[in-house]
C-alpha cells in the first residue's frame, strides 16, 4: 500500500491513469463486479423509492433547490438518475463509462454543484440502499454485507471520476482566466509626434478595461501625447460597463491634456450601444480608423 501511495503523485499513478490501474487502485475485482451485479434486481426495485426520498431530502435545502427550475426538470433528472444507479451496478467499467462520468463532473463544476452536494447525494443513496438490502437479506447478512461492500467500492470509483473532473475543470477555468488576462497586451503606438494609436483586441472585461486606462494614461505621459486614437475593431461585444470604462478613459485622457477618438465600432457593437442607451455625445467616435486618425490630426493643430 505504501508503494502505491508513494507513486500516486507520479504521472502514471492511479488517479488519472489507465482504467485498469484505477480499478486495481480501488481494489475492484471480477468478484466485486459480480457481487454488485447481484444487487441489480434489488437496486432496480428500490431505486424509484430511494430517488423519491432523496429528492424530498434534497429539496429541503435552499442551496440544492435553486438548481431545479421546474417539476419537469426534476422529473427529467429523476429519470436520468434511475438509469445512473442501474448502470452503477451493471455497467462495464470501461472507457465510455469513464468518459460519461467525467462529463457529469464538468457540468456540475460549471453550474456550481459542489463536491459536498455530490458526495452527500451519493452517500444518501448508498446508505438507504444498504439498509434495505440488509432488511431483504436477513437470512444471509454475511452475503448482504459482501455484496454491499463490493457496491461501495464501485461507487467510490465512480465518484472519483466525477471529482477528478471537478478539479480539472476548475484548473481549466483558472488557466483560461489567467490567459485572458495576460494575453493580448495592449500596445501603444506613436503615429507621429503627439499622436498615439491604441488598438484593442479581444474581450474588454473590467480587468482589461482597467489596464487599458492605465496604458493609455501612461502612454500620454510618456509620449507627451495630445491626441489619441482608440481603435476597438477587434472587440466583439460591449455592454454598459465597457462603455463606461471607455467614457472614463477618454475623460481621464482629456484631464491629462489629450483628446481622444474612438474608432472601429462594428455595426453590431454600435447597435448594441444604441440599444443600451449610450449616446454618441458620451463618446467621440469616427467612422473608421482613417477618419479617426484625420480627426486626431486636426486636434493636434488646435
Amino acid at each position, binding site marked *: 500500500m505504501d508503494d502505491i501511495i508513494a507513486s500516486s503523485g507520479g504521472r502514471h499513478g492511479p488517479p488519472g491513469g489507465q482504467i485498469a490501474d484505477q480499478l486495481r487502485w480501488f481494489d475492484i475485482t471480477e468478484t466485486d463486479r459480480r457481487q454488485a451485479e447481484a444487487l441489480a434486481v434489488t437496486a432496480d426495485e428500490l431505486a424509484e423509492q430511494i430517488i423519491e426520498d432523496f429528492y424530498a431530502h434534497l429539496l429541503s435545502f435552499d442551496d440544492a433547490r*435553486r438548481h431545479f*427550475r421546474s417539476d419537469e426538470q426534476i422529473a427529467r433528472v429523476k429519470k436520468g438518475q434511475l438509469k445512473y444507479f442501474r448502470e452503477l451496478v451493471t455497467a462495464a467499467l470501461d472507457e465510455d463509462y469513464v468518459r460519461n462520468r467525467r462529463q457529469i463532473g464538468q*457540468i456540475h463544476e*460549471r453550474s456550481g454543484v459542489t463536491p459536498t452536494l455530490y458526495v452527500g447525494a451519493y452517500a444518501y443513496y448508498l446508505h438507504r440502499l444498504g439498509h434495505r438490502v440488509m432488511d431483504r437479506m436477513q437470512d444471509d447478512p454475511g452475503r448482504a454485507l459482501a455484496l454491499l461492500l463490493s457496491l461501495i467500492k464501485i461507487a467510490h470509483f465512480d465518484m472519483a471520476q*466525477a471529482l477528478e473532473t471537478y478539479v480539472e475543470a476548475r484548473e481549466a477555468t483558472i488557466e483560461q482566466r489567467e490567459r485572458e488576462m495576460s494575453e493580448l497586451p495592449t500596445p501603444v503606438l506613436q503615429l507621429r509626434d503627439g499622436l498615439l494609436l491604441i488598438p484593442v483586441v479581444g*474581450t474588454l472585461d473590467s480587468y482589461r478595461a482597467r489596464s487599458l486606462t492605465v496604458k493609455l494614461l501612461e502612454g500620454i505621459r510618456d509620449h507627451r501625447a495630445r491626441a489619441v486614437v482608440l481603435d476597438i475593431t477587434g472587440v466583439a461585444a460591449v455592454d454598459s460597463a465597457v462603455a463606461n470604462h471607455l467614457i472614463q478613459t477618454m475623460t481621464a485622457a482629456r484631464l491629462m491634456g489629450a483628446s481622444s477618438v474612438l474608432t472601429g465600432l462594428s455595426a453590431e*457593437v454600435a447597435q448594441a450601444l444604441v440599444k*443600451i442607451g449610450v449616446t454618441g455625445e458620451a463618446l467621440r467616435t469616427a467612422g473608421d480608423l482613417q477618419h479617426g486618425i484625420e480627426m486626431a490630426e486636426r486636434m493636434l493643430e488646435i
Partner: protein
Amino acid sequence: MTGLDLAAPQMQRIERDGDVVAARQIGRHLAAEIGFSRPEQALIATAISELARNIVSYAERGMISFAAVDAERRQGLRITAEDRGPGIADIHAAMTDGFSTGNSLGLGLPGTQRIMDEFDIRSAPGEGVTVTVVKWKSR
C-alpha cells in the same frame, strides 16, 4: 446526458468576471444554434453581460440559465438570471435610465429591456433578484 445529473447543462454559475465572459459565450453559441442573426447574437450577448455583471457587482454570486423556447412556430431564447443577494428595494427606480447605486451608467436593466422582447424582473429586499428575458427570432 445520463448521470447523477443534479443540474441542467445550460447553466452558468456567476461569481466573477470570467463567469460573465463564459455566460456570454454560452448565450451567443445557443443563439447561433437557434438561428439568430449575427447582430441579434451580439445584442443577446450584451444583455447577458448586463445581467451577469449586475450579479457580480450587486449580489456577489448567482446563476444564469438558458433555454431554447418554442411558441406558435416562433423560436426564441430564454435567459434567467437569478441571485439571492440584497435584492432591489425600488424596481421602478432601478429600471430608469441613468439610475445606479454602483456609480456606473445605470443603463444595464433598462438597456436589457430594450434589447429583449420580453422582460420580467422580480425582487424583494433581502430576497435577491430574478430577471427573466426572452428574445424571439425575427421571422
